[in-house]
């Protein structure tokens, strides 16, 4: 992470060295400007935490901390329990991760191990195209095209699975419009695939080729090499990129807001409509005021805290993997 130690004229200045001279003002000012720009990051993060928490105090004083766990959400009667939204956020993010991780890791392996470098670039472009599609366009396509199409599939699956214990628990339930936890999770999976793929690729690329070639030299097939040489090295890094994808899926607002069904519900049926924290904030903020608004901002604070924690843990994993690879 740090640049190599360089001869810094600043160190020489002020010493008794015959060639030393004071650093000119312009140079020092530039240094301060750079420092200020860097500190801006920390300042913004702290400000976000402080100001949004301030705005949400009336929600916390109204509901107490149990507001986060209460399932009673009824703005008309001043009840603002956030559990249904936390549940929805968790469920859609989990669905997204379960669907996206196998595909992304497989893609990363494809790009680093299978495909000759000449072909890797175009494939990377195609994967990055997924990232270029803005979230709101995913949502527009999702609600106007995908949801009606997928609604028929849901009905067939649900009716086909009636009676089967575990599967109908997850995939039962009626859905009349296609907007559901699963639809939102699926679209989120599409959206986080590019990120998880590119991060996994970076991690896998740091595996020392000595180990890979050693495996081949022992007669391993490519798959055995991946399992034996690549995977142990890149494990924690890939876990880190998965967590980053999870964080992104939890915070993704607009696509979820349009296709999740806008119906606060805690249910095991993945095919029924639900709601998530960012979705309710986006949909209801304009018409909220007072404690209602504070509740929405409070959920934003919750979202901020959760994603910061997930990101901290994720970056920790990625850094650990990078350090290990360098030392290996």
């Amino acid at each position: 992470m740090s640049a190599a130690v360089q001869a810094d004229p600043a160190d020489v200045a002020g010493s008794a060295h015959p060639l030393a001279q004071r650093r000119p003002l312009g140079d020092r000012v530039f240094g301060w400007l750079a420092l200020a720009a860097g500190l801006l990051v920390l300042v913004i993060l702290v400000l976000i935490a402080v100001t949004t928490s301030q705005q949400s105090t009336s929600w916390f004083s109204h509901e107490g901390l149990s507001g986060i766990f209460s399932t009673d959400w009824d703005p008309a009667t001043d009840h603002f329990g956030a559990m249904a939204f936390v549940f929805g956020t968790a469920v859609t993010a989990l669905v997204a991760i379960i669907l996206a991780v196998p595909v992304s890791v497989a893609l990363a392996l494809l790009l680093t191990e299978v495909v000759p470098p000449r072909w890797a670039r175009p494939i990377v472009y195609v994967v990055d195209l997924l990232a270029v599609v803005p979230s709101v366009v995913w949502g527009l396509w999702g609600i106007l095209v995908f949801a009606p199409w997928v609604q028929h599939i849901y009905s067939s699956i649900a009716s086909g699975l009636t009676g089967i214990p575990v599967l109908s628990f997850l995939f039962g339930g009626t859905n009349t419009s296609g907007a559901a936890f699963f639809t939102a999770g699926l679209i989120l999976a599409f959206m986080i695939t590019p990120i998880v793929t590119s991060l996994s690729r970076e991690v896998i690329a740091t595996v020392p080729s000595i180990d890979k070639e050693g495996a081949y030299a022992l007669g391993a097939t490519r798959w055995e090499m991946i399992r034996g040489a690549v995977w142990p090295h890149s494990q924690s890094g890939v876990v880190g990129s998965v967590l980053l994808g999870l964080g992104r899926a939890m915070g993704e607002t607009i696509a979820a807001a349009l296709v999740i069904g806008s119906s606060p519900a805690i249910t095991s049926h993945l095919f029924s409509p639900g709601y998530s924290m960012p979705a309710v904030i986006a949909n209801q903020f304009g018409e909220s005021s007072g404690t209602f608004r504070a509740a929405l901002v409070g959920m934003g604070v919750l979202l901020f805290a959760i994603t910061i924690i997930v990101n901290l843990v994720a970056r920790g994993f990625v850094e650990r993997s990078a350090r290990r690879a360098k030392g290996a």
Partner: protein
Amino acid sequence: MQLRRRPQVMTVGGAIVAMALSLAACSSSSSSSPGTGSSGSSAPSSGSSSSSAALSGTLNGSGSSFQNTYQLAAIQGFKSVQSGITVNYNSVGSGTGRSNLAAGTVNFAGSDSPIPAKEASEFAGKTVLYFPVVIGPITLSYNLSGVSNLKLDPTVIAKIFQGEITKWNDPAIAADNPGVSLPGTAITTAVRSDSSGTTQNFSLFLQTAVPSVWKLGSSSTIKWPSSARAGAQNTGVASIIKSTSGAIGYVDYSTAKASGLSYASVKNSAGNFVAPSPTSASASAAGVNVKPDLTFAAAWGSGAQAYPITYQSWVLVYATQPNASDAAMLQAYLTYLLGDGQQLLSNLGYAPLPSNIDTMAKAQISKITG
């Protein structure tokens, strides 16, 4: 190395700056040219507003989504009367419109109901003037393939929205529709997620018509059964109905018609099943009792051909405006809304105001001072 690089950096940077500047110049010149979208219906010949001087400025309003179609058409038509005034209307629901007015972020609010008691404290110390501007039906729109002329009576409607009737082939619905084969599809009720005057008036109708059956009260937000799907503004409810087979919901007539939805005929106090239309809405509003502050309720009116779920919408403004310019602009816009604008209404799916109410409203315009 440096000699080659720097010009390229400056080219790119200069291009970005030039693009931003030219866009700013572009946009400031295009905003002064009149909008190109026409309103569809012919602009009425303006004969009334001869004495008003040319004003300029911006008026911001927000609120009722029921009024939205009229507001948007009126904004376009008003441009030919006062081209210097830009009016913006944001359809966010009556409740949010009222709170925006209380917060002072808009010049006028659109509301389908008078300020309820629990919001009165936000307006303490200020006089709010009510200007009724439109009357219109609330439809029971539905999405049921193969069924085109659904008939419903208030008891059945109340039970559907309370979650007591859950399938389309329920005997109660069949009783209203003899000879029609109703499928066994589950009923999905579509309701409003935002604080809405449409909800207020729909529930008021149910409370007035069948008070023994309807238990959820009358308010701009109702605690619907958890099986109800909620959408924002009338258009959100219409979207749900349109995309969900077996759905039924309450949507204002102009939105329902423009969305291509089918709607039911409702039994009125005289016992007749009447379909919603501007005519049947006017029949319900005729002879309604108007209070001195111009508030009234048009629902469940008497009359053989009256459509029972008819409601009204007001523009709310403060009597005392912060400056003379705002007062003059509001007076000009309200004069249009109550005058030439009324001729746009029937094409849009509303009923014009009864003439006695219109006269009383026009007389109130001069009370706006600034």
